[in-house]
């Protein structure tokens, strides 16, 4: 296991380097100029040029790239062009809302989607199965921002049950946090639920045809125990795989959900930084997202071993 972790960490280094290079090039090739955003819409070209020179943006791209890589190697992510705050500080300050939101969404997904998928499989071809699959198609088809706005309209503005926006830390006010996170978590988890429910159904269906399920029934197990203790654990590997792959879906969902519910997480920071062409923040964020992706995949590999002792690396 230790060897696996070390190997994966070593493999992550070139991955991060490739991501860093691509992000750097894409940002510099995209139109727009942070110096212009900083100077404002009434600045003259000379004023913008002065600011560009002060920010070092007038230097050749290879020089800028080498400087940035050197800084990164020393753990220096740079400072925001606009706010002059260290990039690492800005990202760390925004991590909590995003992690809390993502955690709630994953918990909600696992708690609802796995039982729903398993139930659909159990009642294969019944109205329950069709209803779950129809809901799953809907969940896939409706964009997250539409779901978010519908939830705000219904449960916040009309019924006045939940707040319409904002974030409260669960460490400061658990009850307030629950109220503020209910709608965004639901919004973020809908696509994820649709995905997991479908995969769970399909995986459980495969397992239900296996000999050991018949054996379990023959031993006199009640139906509930057959499903939850015998079938579902054996269907776990594909579900865990999809949860891992779905992290990418979750990251893109976070960006949208945070915008709709005005949650000050890294998603909102990403949009802000891209629109403002705040290169150091965008570069730092993309590297952070890549790191999360690598870490989650490593975690999934570790969970495989824990769930299925037959798996060896």
């Amino acid at each position: 296991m230790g060897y696996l972790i070390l190997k994966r960490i070593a493999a992550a280094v070139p991955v991060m380097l490739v991501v860093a290079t691509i992000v750097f090039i894409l940002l510099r090739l995209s139109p727009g100029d942070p110096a212009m955003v900083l100077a404002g819409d009434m600045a003259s070209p000379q004023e913008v040029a002065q600011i560009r020179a002060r920010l070092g943006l007038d230097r050749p791209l290879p020089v800028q790239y080498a400087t940035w890589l050197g800084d990164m190697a020393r753990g220096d992510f740079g400072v925001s062009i606009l706010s002059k705050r260290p990039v690492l500080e800005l990202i760390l300050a925004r991590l909590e809302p995003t992690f809390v939101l993502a955690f709630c969404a994953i918990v909600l997904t696992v708690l609802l989607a796995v039982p729903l998928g398993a139930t659909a499989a159990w009642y294969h071809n019944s109205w329950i199965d069709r209803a779950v699959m129809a809901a799953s198609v809907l969940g896939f088809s409706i964009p997250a921002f539409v779901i978010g706005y519908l939830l705000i309209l219904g449960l916040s503005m009309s019924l006045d049950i939940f707040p319409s926006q904002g974030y409260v830390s669960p460490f400061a006010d658990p009850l307030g946090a629950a109220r503020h996170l209910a709608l965004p978590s639901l919004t973020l988890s809908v696509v994820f639920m649709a995905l997991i429910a479908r995969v769970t159904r399909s995986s459980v269906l495969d397992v239900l045809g296996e000999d050991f399920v018949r054996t379990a029934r023959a031993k006199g197990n009640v139906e509930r125990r057959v499903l939850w203790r015998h079938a579902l654990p054996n269907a776990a590997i594909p579900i865990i795989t999809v949860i891992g792959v779905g992290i990418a879906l979750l990251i893109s969902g976070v960006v949208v959900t945070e915008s709709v519910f005005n949650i000050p997480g890294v998603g909102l920071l990403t949009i802000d930084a891209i629109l403002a062409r705040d290169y150091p923040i965008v570069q730092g964020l993309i590297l952070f997202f890549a790191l999360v992706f690598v870490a989650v995949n490593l975690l999934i590999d570790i969970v495989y071993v824990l769930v299925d002792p037959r798996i060896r690396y």
Partner: protein
Amino acid sequence: MMISRRDAASLLLAGLTAVAVMAAPVAGSAAEPKTLKVSPHASLRVLDPITTNAYITRNHGYLVYDTLFSLDAAFNPQPQMVQSWKVSDDKLTYDFTLRDGLAFHDGTPVTAEDCVASLQRWAKRDLIGRRLVGAMKEMTAVDARTIRIALKEPFGQMLQALSKPSSFVPFIMPKRIADTPPDQNITEIVGSGPFKFVAGEFQPGVKVVYERNAAYVPRSEVPNGTAGGKVAKVDRIEWISFPDMQASVNALKKGEIDLIENMTADIKPTLEGAPGVVVQKRSGLSAATIRFNWSQPPFNDVRVRRAVQLAVSQRDFMDAVIGDADAYQICPGMFICGTPLESRAGVVGTVEADIAKAKAMLAQSSYKGEKVVIITPNIVSFGGLAPLTQQVMRQIGINAEIQTMEWSTFLSRRTLEKPAAEGGWNVANAVFTSLDLYSPLANLNFDARGPGSYTGFVNDPKTEELKTQFARESDPAKQKAIADEMQTRAYDQVFYIPLGVYNSFAAYRSNIRNFIDSAIPVFWAIEKN
């Protein structure tokens, strides 16, 4: 597998209980400070009001910093930090004496040296400031409370310059901070204004927090525009950024925030009649315009510009873009209606369109049917301007195409003087506020220095000469005559086309009192009951 009725009932009960608990209102503490929660018109990211001319940074500046003079609602300069001032008989020496009790937020007293350093930094960035420096021999601190400005030649706009209300505003900061080069962001925000910036709670793009400056000594006059006594009546102000206007409207309706500082007329119907919400028309005006790239064909030909000018009807634009007739005015005055220099001198077209005359003018021009590129940003305040501009041009036979882009690309692209086919542009709309346009020296539409000047690159030495005359003149009647001549010239050469002016609105909870109707949103005097 079956879920029993008892299991189902338990689950349902648990779910309902959770919803009820989460939906329960959270009780507030009686000892909490009075906090005004505001949705500002944009997210604050740059804190230095001299580095950027962004309005949001200017508004932040008004909370934290103070100014020597301020402009009242009638566009008259009034003393703010200054107690008294003297002008020599030859009008070449000004002595300004500071009020007693002025202190920065770090506790140090405001001195004349701080003011000199602040004004020098401001003057390097501001159009009027540069003219002031051009007319200046020296600016010195005579003693701790007296600033002397000695001039080489008369500068009739001295008090107007020192009270300049919009970006760049001559805010006063400590000398150690004001010595920072003006193209380099300051990071320490220390002013002497009625509110203190709380650096520890600043989250760029998310939240800005200000606390009442208990040591601030306000003037005794009633608040008027940006002038008068700045009496802070709430303990704390929080600017909370929203990614879109609808989210802030929802938050105001639910009482999650107290005030939306600025919204367009199209949002007003969504708040009218909402319980506990007041909608107020703001007196400050915004002005929409069409600007041409003078450095490239076909708009380097004045006849093409005149053809478009003749085809424009302000009412058509305002009806399409604003819609609400109570929220806009037909205003051909280039120094904006309702200001001391409002004028109809030299007005051509714009009020009524004359398509036949416009077509005839275009036929006489050098235009040969080439494609014209209108660039526009995908932001709300520009919505509708570009399509209507395209329609007007097509109506008279100009082959116009719209290219939409996000804000930062738009800003970069319109500084390019090269042909549209090489990534430049031909036509762009621009929106200003009345405070940017009321002064002939600050009005960027009269930046006529040619290549390298403000976008559009208007090249007219005659106008630059008129601006110099205006700067020297101190007689209001003669100033008005010069401004009229400038406007006549701008209409004749079609520097740009004014498309009408319109109001924006503020909305707040009904427990908010004394929201000052200022063109710039100011937060002193506001009470929260």
